[in-house]
Structure formats: C-alpha cells, structure tokens
C-alpha cells in the first residue's frame, strides 16, 4: 500500500505519516508491519505492507491517532530519532 503526501516540516510529516497509516489500516482492515518512507524535498513517498486483521491476532488497544505532544524528529550523528505521543 502506497502513501504520498507533501509536508515541509519533518515533525508534522511524522504525524501525517502515522495518521495516514492508521486511517488506511482501518479502511483496508489490515495490520501493517513493514514500512518504508522516503522524502525528496517536501514530497514524501511511503509504502506499508502487512496482513489482514484476523481473530488469531492479539487484540491490544486501538490507537486513535498520533498527536503533537512530545513531538520530535532529530538527528544525532547518523541516527534519527522520531517520537510522539499517540492517543489510545
């Protein structure tokens, strides 16, 4: 499943990416477990893949959405750290 969006702010891009994933997962009835995301300038292109919901999967709590709370995307050396609070 491919997702594309435009966003110049890296932190808002994280929130946008997570919320698009959540929306698509629910729309398609899927659980995503593999992700790729690339950006070229302000354009972001991502892919997510996984499996369909089924009763054998452990039922946790539903994530309503990614928020702007404790939102941070920063690079230290070669490592990127992305963080935000999700509402459950």
């Amino acid at each position, binding site marked *: 499943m491919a997702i594309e969006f435009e966003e110049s702010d890296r932190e808002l891009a994280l*929130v946008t990416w997570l919320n698009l994933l959540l*929306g698509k997962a629910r729309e398609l009835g899927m659980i995503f477990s593999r992700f790729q995301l690339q950006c070229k300038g302000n354009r972001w292109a991502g892919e997510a893949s996984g499996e369909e919901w089924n009763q054998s999967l452990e039922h946790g709590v539903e994530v309503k959405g990614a928020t702007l*709370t404790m939102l941070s995307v920063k690079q230290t050396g070669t490592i990127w750290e992305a963080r935000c609070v999700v509402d459950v």
Partner: protein
Amino acid sequence: MNLSQLQQLQPYLWTIPRRPEEKRGEVLLYGSAPLLGSMDDKVLEQISNVAELPGLVGAAMTMPDAHWGYGFPIGGVAAFDAQKGGIISAGGVGFDISCGIRCLRSNLTVAEALPKFARLAEILFQDIPAGVGEEGHLKLTPAQIDQVLQEGAHWAVKQGYGNAADLDYIEERGRVNGAVPGNVSDLAKKRQRGEMGTLGSGNHYLEIQVVERIHDVEAASAFGLREGQILVSIHCGSRGLGHQIGTDYLVMLAKSAARLGIPLPNRELACAPIQSAEGQQYIGAMNAGINCALANRQILTHLTRTAFAKVYPNADLETLFDVSHNTCKVETHEIDGKSRLLHVHRKGATRAFGPRHPTLPERYRAVGQPVVIGGSMGTGSYILAGNSENPAFSSSSHGAGRAMSRHQSLARWNGRQLVDELARQGILIRTRSMRGVAEEAPGAYKDVDMVAEATEQAGLARRVAFLRPKVCVKG
C-alpha cells in the same frame, strides 16, 4: 504534583500564582489535596498553556479527575469568545469526539436479574460488537453516513433503533446543529462504514450496574432511581470517524495557528480562531462527529434492549440520560452579570446544567441534569445532578481518571487473574482482550469515591446514587 506550587483558594479549589511577567490567564484546579497531589506535573504545564490562548474567558480549569493528555489535559475546561479572537482547538475536544455515556434505567431489581447474569453476560458479549477490529452489523453507504452526521440519534430512531422518547434524554435532544458532513474526509467516512453500533476498545465498556446507595433522595426520585435497581451504562464515542476528524484537522490547525500569528506556548495546542475559515471548517466537522457518536450510542441502546429481551422478556430499559465528555459547545453563560455566547471546550469533562436550565427535560428541571462519573470495572460509578451555582461553565468530572499509564498497568496486572478475581467478587467480565483488561485494571484508576466527593464539595455537581458493577463487556 508538588502542592507547594499552588495556592489554595478554597478547600477544593486551587490556583497557580502568576508571576508579574506572565501574560497567561487564570488557572483554576478543582479537587482535594490528595487528588491534586497524585496528578502529574504535566497537568499544570498543559492547563497553564491553555490559559495563554487568545480569547479565553474566565479561567482555564481542571476537574478533580484531571490527568495529562495532548494539548489540553484530560479533565480540562476552557471557554472562548469568538468576538474577542477566541480559538477552537482540536486538542481541547479530543480525538474521540463526543465520547460519552448513555445510562439506561430498567424495571428490574438485582434480586430478579441476578440468577441470569451469566447468561446476560454471554448474550451481550455475543450481540454487542466490541474490541479492536470488530465491525458492526450495519454497513452504511456514503449517503447514509452523511445522514447520520447531519441527523445524529434522530437518524438511528428513524431506522428503528430505539424510540423517540430516548431523544428527550440526550444532550441537544440527540442532534447538534451546525454539522457539515462535507467537512468530513472521505477516509473518515470509509473508516466509519462498518463501525456504527460498535463499542470500540480501551476504556470503552457496556456495564450492568445496581444502584447500591442513594445520596440525594429528591434527585433520585426525579431520575427514577431506587436502591437495588438495575442500570446499564454504555461508554463509547464517535469511533473511527471521530478519530479521523481529529487527525485530519490536527496538522491543519497547527499550521493555521502559525500562519495567523497565534503565539502557542506549545505546538500541541493546535488551534485556529473560531471565526477563521479553518476554525469554522473544524467546527462543522466536529459537530458531524458529535452526531455520529449520538447515533452510535442510540444503536447500541437498541442492541442492549434486544439482548435484555432474550434473557428478561419483561425488561424495560429507558434512557436516563446521555452525556458527552469530549466536545466544544456554543453556550450562553452569565459573566459579570452579562450573558455571553461562548465556545466551551470540555476535554474529558461533562456538561452539568443545573436546575431550571431550559434545555433540560421537564422531568429533571427541578433537580438538574444527570451527570455520570464512570469508575473502573471493579469499583463503581456515580450518578450526580448538576448545580445552579456551578463555577466552571456548568462542567463536571467525567470519570475516575487514570492514575498510571497502560504500560505500568500491564507490568503490574495479569488480565486473566483480574477477570478471575473480579468474578470471585461477583463481577462478570467479558472481553476479547486480556491485555486490555490488564490495562484497564481497577487499580490503574483513581479512587472514584474521592473524585465524586471532590466534585460535590467543589460545587460542580452533587452525588445522587452510587452504582456497583455486576457485568462488564469490555472493548
């Protein structure tokens, strides 16, 4: 929270002293010393940030069950004047727009119902779609979803879910004006397609309760409550549609604040002036989300009645009241002797109109609006009544409030063991997620007795009845 940071104004009212250079508005915190002492410091930080938003009228306030959330704290109340540049904030409403509780009163006593509680639990577990990934029996077309968003609980009644008498006992009579379905994204509507009539997960529940204790005889009589009576509480909201509205508008409102030069102490307070295009767009979508939640609880009411009829053929379930606790509503309030139209944000807080309020059903007008404070599945809940002299824009607590994170709860409790222990106490739990039960452990929540007592002592609402849980279907 270190209470030395606060100034106590009254036994159940505190404020954060302002330094001379601070430009923020007033902050008021309602609660007892133990309740405030158990709150995270982030509650103070978040409500102080809310007090910096433009157009704030009066104080930014927290209810006795407050805990930290995103943007606004959960249990946060703030009113804004659109004419004074006041703002609308998605964080002041929450992702689960119009999450709330529908409370039903029955004609059954616990003595009559008890012998069949196990069967009732199984039927409810079977008939009420609950839990992550569970879909409802209804599959709506886009046109039907637009009707739901416009008509709220009225749509559900027209389809045969419940009856017109229910509508009189729902806030806004089951339908809020100002809904604009066109402001709700196609993705939100697609998410909702199979979710009408579902309970959801997390802290959502359908609970069978018994009235164990009456506190206010007059109000209990007006509400039709008596000791030993069986009640039902249904706690859920606008499901995927509400969540998607929240996420759709979050980034837009954050950018709007920056573009319009609204200084935000923290970007998590994403907001826009009420009178801006973005503000009006969000309000139209939020109102659609409210109607979705009201319709959802109306459908669940019907499913509950059907389930009861299978076990108790003579059961009659009437709507006591339906309260929402994640909304922003346009209301008239008296400020310094003048009537003002305000946008009142209640994030994890319940509206609690007092006696003689014109919007109340005739039956309740002498005593005030019913308010429900939902506790945990192992403790209990309270029915309260609104007060005329409520000091917080007619707002009240909504629940026991979490005392620890879900991670902490999972580390401390085992779901299976909890279910077994509660069964020994006479409380039947039915769930598809033992992990969810652990996260919702009674010990993960504040003491509901303390919250209800503080709510009453602070003048927000007064206790009417205490309800003991007997059966709980968890999402």
